[in-house]
């Protein structure tokens, strides 16, 4: 079942078309990486899903219910973490969670229990200072606690890691990975390594529409090339290997760079085994033999010109 469905979403600010017929579906219980360049329309999409912005046309459904602009009922299913969450600086973390809990209509008992639990989860258990003195990372973590307070079915995070240092970033990713299974997570980012670390689904947004989407393994399979990288001890060795006649076919591309050789085989019948056999025939022990997986970075640059 899809927890979030977006159909033919159009949106523009003035003459600038931000969303151009965006279609997207987020399956339940996934960690969904929403990737795109800065200004690709990620934040705009999220704000429309939350009813904070009005789309020019198109529809959004959350848990099967249609999102309307303004005070939308669908928000009760959603926890939202803005890119830079802003809190009341004069409140303490518990007071803020209490305020949020009262707004969503949780009982006093539930608020106390959930607050304890969540503050422990995000590592703010013993912090009783006013939020005004919090660091970026602490605010981001309180933001997650706040977003998870009413046990939402869908957690939407807008660039949760981009403003943080490496440690803060790891903490956030660990928290998101920890809630996987209980809550569907959609998070936007332009940092691909974050996606690789925790996401199982990915969608790439470019010029207001999706240019790539699916599970990470599907995508990698789809874009996998029969491509290998071999590093030799000497450049001459590499040259000798490249020159042998078994490899002189139009279906095989060779690229030599110093003592490294990249071999791309377009023909499905030929695979890495052929190369290994060839190496042993020629009595060459390479320093490294690697089947090249398409990295997200390569994919990203390929689909987003």
């Amino acid at each position: 079942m899809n927890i979030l469905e977006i159909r033919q979403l159009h949106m523009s600010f003035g003459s600038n078309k931000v969303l151009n017929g965006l279609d997207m579906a987020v399956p339940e219980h996934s960690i969904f990486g929403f990737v795109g360049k800065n200004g690709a329309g990620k934040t705009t999409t999220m704000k429309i899903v939350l009813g904070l912005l009005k789309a020019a046309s198109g529809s959004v459904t959350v848990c099967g219910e249609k999102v309307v602009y303004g005070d939308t009922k669908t928000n009760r299913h959603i926890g939202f973490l803005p890119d830079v969450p802003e809190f009341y600086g004069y409140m303490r973390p518990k007071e803020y969670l209490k305020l949020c809990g009262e707004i969503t209509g949780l009982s006093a008992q539930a608020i106390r229990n959930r607050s304890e639990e969540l503050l422990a989860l995000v590592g703010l258990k013993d912090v009783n200072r006013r939020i005004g003195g919090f660091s970026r990372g602490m605010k981001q973590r309180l933001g997650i606690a706040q977003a998870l307070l009413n046990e939402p079915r869908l957690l939407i995070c807008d660039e949760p890691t981009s403003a943080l240092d490496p440690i803060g970033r790891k903490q956030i990713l660990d928290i998101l990975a920890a809630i996987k299974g209980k809550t569907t997570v959609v998070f936007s980012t332009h940092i691909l390594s974050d996606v690789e670390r925790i996401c199982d689904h990915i969608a790439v947004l470019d010029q207001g529409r999706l240019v790539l989407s699916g599970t990470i393994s599907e995508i990698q399979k789809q874009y996998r090339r029969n491509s290998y990288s071999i590093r030799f001890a000497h450049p001459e060795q590499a040259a000798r290997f490249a020159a042998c006649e078994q490899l002189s076919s139009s279906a095989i591309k060779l690229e030599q760079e110093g003592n490294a050789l990249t071999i791309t085989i377009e023909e499905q019948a030929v695979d890495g085994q052929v190369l290994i056999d060839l190496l042993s025939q020629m009595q060459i022990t390479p320093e490294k033999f690697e089947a090249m997986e398409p990295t997200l970075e390569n994919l990203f640059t390929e689909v987003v010109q």
Partner: protein
Amino acid sequence: MEVLKEYWVFIVPLIIAELALMVAALTHVLRHSNYRFGSRALWIFIVVFFQIIGPLAYFIFGRGVDE
């Protein structure tokens, strides 16, 4: 002193209220280091030497945004 004897019912509460305002502003100046403009020394001077107006100016215009 004559005046004080006659008007203490006014002057004592007045001084207490003004002092309360000043102390509140002064502790805030000393506890926080970011001001919308001006420096700590400037705000201490203003708060202490300008009764009522000084603390008011600090709280309304000078206080840093967070808290």
